[in-house]
């Protein structure tokens, strides 16, 4: 389905070429910024670590801006793992328990709540929120802004004075930043504070070089074409592995139940849709929640084993390699409770927002539109579905009530058109249809 450059048939070579071009622009380019678009699992973190190490090696004082504390800690750990000699500063908040305790074991990582204490270190890493409070310091020569598409324009405004030049890395297909209050009055302004940092940056600096990572190492060959077509129609990417490189098998045969059949389908094809009868339900639809929990339970009970390029022997599918994704926090809470009731623990259950940037072997998704009487902008948001459908290395099972296609047809997108705002393609409506029509090929219907 997806087209890619036939001149570079090897995904590894294509990715290496892209990385080389990005590093060349970052280290030797003349423009103040470089933007890198990265589809899900395309090695964004690897790129950030590599760019950080090369900038540090070139003697350029570097600040790294990430969006959450978990991302910051993860980056520091990766940096320390790759280059144990490098001194890294971890700027943290003055709350209690502000960083991952694992950092305490690393001698080369200096931690402080004051930027002044970390002055002179080759690399200092912190969240955008913490950087925004740093004042009266010598600006850094270079910055790396991670997850820049999830950063809001006003957050960039607060930190942009701290650096001379920057590398902006992010995934344009994930959830856009949002505001809890209306920001319509600034819609269409190039510096709309509620828009993403990248859109403001590019509106004011259209000449900046823009790069793209072309290969998703996370998504299997079964998922990359669908995700690419549905969410990145104009910037296609491919999977790093071919069909058959990833396999999922179960030690226990199917008992013929719907959850087992959908698991077999997902193991075989990478996708599975467990369809419950159409019915309007409350958000925490008890039947759908139970179905999700049951699928997870069977997934663990049946002794799943994953074969991938990472290991020669099958790796047992354990609870920590499984995630459940929902749209709302109360749904996540309901699934957690249902899993506990079935005696399952250790499985990550979270909303799309919190699953951003994470990776699992198998994901079970409660479809955002399942059982809804309406399709609001929130539930239609392209990024939400994209996050939920692109967290897995092997297979994704979607649990949904029937009738979502009709619901979509009854609720075409009717958001007001704002002058000066770049229309995002594809819209959530179209992306939802694209994903659903693919999923129906892997459908197992079930009446609990």
């Amino acid at each position, binding site marked *: 389905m997806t087209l890619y450059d036939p001149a570079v048939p090897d995904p590894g070579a294509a990715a290496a070429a892209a990385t080389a071009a990005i590093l060349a622009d970052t280290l030797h380019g003349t423009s103040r910024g470089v933007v890198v678009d990265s589809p899900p699992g395309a090695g964004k973190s690897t790129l950030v670590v590599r760019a950080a190490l090369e900038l540090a090696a070139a003697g350029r004082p570097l600040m790294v801006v990430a969006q959450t504390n978990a991302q910051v800690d993860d980056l520091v750990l990766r940096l320390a793992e790759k280059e144990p000699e490098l001194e890294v500063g971890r700027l943290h908040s003055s709350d209690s328990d502000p960083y991952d305790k694992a950092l305490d074991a690393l001698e080369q990582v200096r931690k402080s709540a004051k930027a002044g204490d970390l002055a002179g270190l080759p690399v200092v890493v912190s969240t955008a929120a913490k950087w925004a409070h740093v004042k009266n310091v010598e600006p850094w020569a270079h910055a790396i802004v991670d997850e820049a598409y999830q950063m809001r324009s*006003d957050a960039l*405004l607060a930190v942009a004075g701290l650096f001379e030049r920057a590398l902006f890395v992010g995934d344009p297909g994930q959830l856009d930043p949002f505001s809890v*209050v209306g920001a319509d009055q600034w819609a269409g302004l190039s*510096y*709309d504070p509620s828009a993403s940092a990248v859109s*403001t940056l590019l509106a*004011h*600096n259209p000449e900046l070089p823009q790069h793209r990572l072309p290969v998703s190492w996370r998504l299997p060959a079964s998922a990359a074409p669908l995700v690419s077509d549905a969410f990145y129609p104009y910037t296609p990417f491919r999977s790093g592995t071919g069909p058959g490189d990833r396999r999922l098998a179960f030690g226990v045969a199917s008992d013929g139940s719907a959850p087992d059949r959908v698991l077999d389908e997902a193991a075989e094809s990478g996708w599975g849709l467990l369809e419950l009868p159409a019915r309007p339900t409350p958000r925490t639809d008890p039947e759908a929640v139970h179905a999700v929990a049951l699928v997870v339970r069977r997934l663990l009970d049946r002794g799943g084993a994953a074969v991938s390029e990472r290991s020669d022997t099958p790796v047992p599918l354990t609870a920590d390699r499984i995630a459940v994704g929902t749209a709302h926090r109360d749904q996540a*809470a309901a699934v957690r409770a249902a899993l506990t009731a079935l005696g399952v623990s250790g499985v990550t259950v979270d909303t799309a927002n919190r699953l951003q940037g994470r990776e699992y072997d198998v994901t079970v998704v409660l479809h955002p539109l399942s059982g809804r009487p309406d399709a609001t902008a929130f539930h239609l948001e392209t990024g939400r579905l994209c996050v939920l459908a692109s967290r897995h290395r092997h297979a994704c099972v979607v649990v949904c009530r029937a009738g979502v296609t009709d619901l979509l047809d009854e609720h075409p997108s009717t958001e007001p058109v704002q002058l000066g705002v770049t229309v995002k393609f594809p819209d959530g409506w179209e992306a939802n249809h694209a994903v659903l029509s693919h999923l129906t090929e892997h459908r197992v219907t079930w009446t609990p």
Partner: protein
Amino acid sequence: MSLIAHLARMEAVETGRAQPLATVRHRHLGGRPLVLVPLTTAGEAGAPLGALVGTDPDEPRLLVVPQPRDRELRFAFLAELAEEVLPYVDGYADAVELVERNETDPETGKKTKVEVELCADAPQLIVPSRAGIEYVRLLGRSTRFRRTAEQDPDTPYPAPPRVPLLGRWLTHYGERARVPGSSLLLAATDLLNRHWATGQSSLEDQHLGALLAWIDPYDDEPGAEGAHRAELGRDPQGQLLCPPAGPATDPAFDNQLLAPAIEAYDRARQAVGAAEDGETADAALAALHRAEREVRRLVLSQLRPTWDATWRALGLLRQLPEGARVPDRWTRDRWSFTAHRDRITAGEPPQPRRDDAVTAAAKLAAREQAQGQLDAQEALDDPLVLAGRRLSGEAFAAEVTEVTMAWTESKRPAPRPLLTVRTEDRPHLDAGVKVYRSLGGKPQSAEFARREEDGSLVLRLLDRMGRSKEPAEGTVPEKGERISWTLFEHDARVGPKLPDPEETPWTHGGPPRSADAELPDAVTPEDLL
């Protein structure tokens, strides 16, 4: 919409009466608000047709533009409106109290205490509907850049003296209305919808007449019937029984009544111009006055029901006691009013057409902070609002069943008592999640430690227990106490300081161009009919 609001709506459908969403009033209502009911002309953006304005429900001032396309008459209307609004606003400018405020000296960077004026009260503007707030903004936008003959003797169409000033105040009020929880400019429909749930859609809830039919029905008429009549009921002449709350008028009124009356007025005006002798001129003038009176009568017929409904809404809200933290938010409104008063006194130019990058970001941050604070304060002020948060797992009410003293393991041990509490709520608690309770108006925090086998929760109290080893008296709950805990913080965090506009970074286009006073919009052919 929260689950509890859904339940209230279903109950409203079942009973035919609006159901309360609050037990206290969550917005400030001043003793003497200025009610403004504006009407606009169909098809002409920003061409007012008329307004009722005043602080006395029995004596509204009627302002009418008999020919809305006439620029002179439009200005006359705005001048009259300024005569009503500005004295009301000015009446609050001089009564001040002196308060101390921390300010940073720009040169030394030291924090010093300075005494500044804070207006003791602020003028409050009430419009019937959300569209009315939008119209206040539009009037402000269309008048604040106008030039008076005094400001610029060469301006081709000078505005009456006080009109630009009116525009600046209306703009300020329109902008302040975007701050969650602010009360300087309020819409009656928003006020009612905050405090009551009806059995109709939220779109229908924007109709003031329909809303009142649910909340305050005549003769116990079921809400759905009353609302249906308010929305669609027409008299034998085809006119709505309950005219829309504006600023848009009903097309049937426009076509059948207003258009002929305005035409008659136009003809009468032409007749006055064409009169050749005194006698015909007198007769023509009398006809003109009659025609004008007719337009005024018609416009009043559309305005008066909305005027009365707006005051009825205010009366309903006054029956609710004010929430404990409402005065705190009103103080912020007073600061906002005082600051704008000072800007005008200092001779600063009118608000720019568009915010620059820094101002926009600062406003958004302030509003998000205000929203967080409003959500928390409403829940703390009102058990019914708190019940909604409890239902959604964001708060819980619990009885303390055991208190175990414990201390930190540091050189100077600080108290960290463990509370075992029992609750029937189902809060979304994970290990380490912080919870807060109000202790003498200040938040005291605890962290969730574990869940006991019998379902009790164990909380570790973290702060506000004084500096000594033994917690200060009254700071640790006792066995048997019933306490409401929230998972959300009670105060919103203050955001980071943004750069000055002159230091806008390159990512945001650099500093804005010079902040000279903006000129009014250029005159286009469409302006001159």
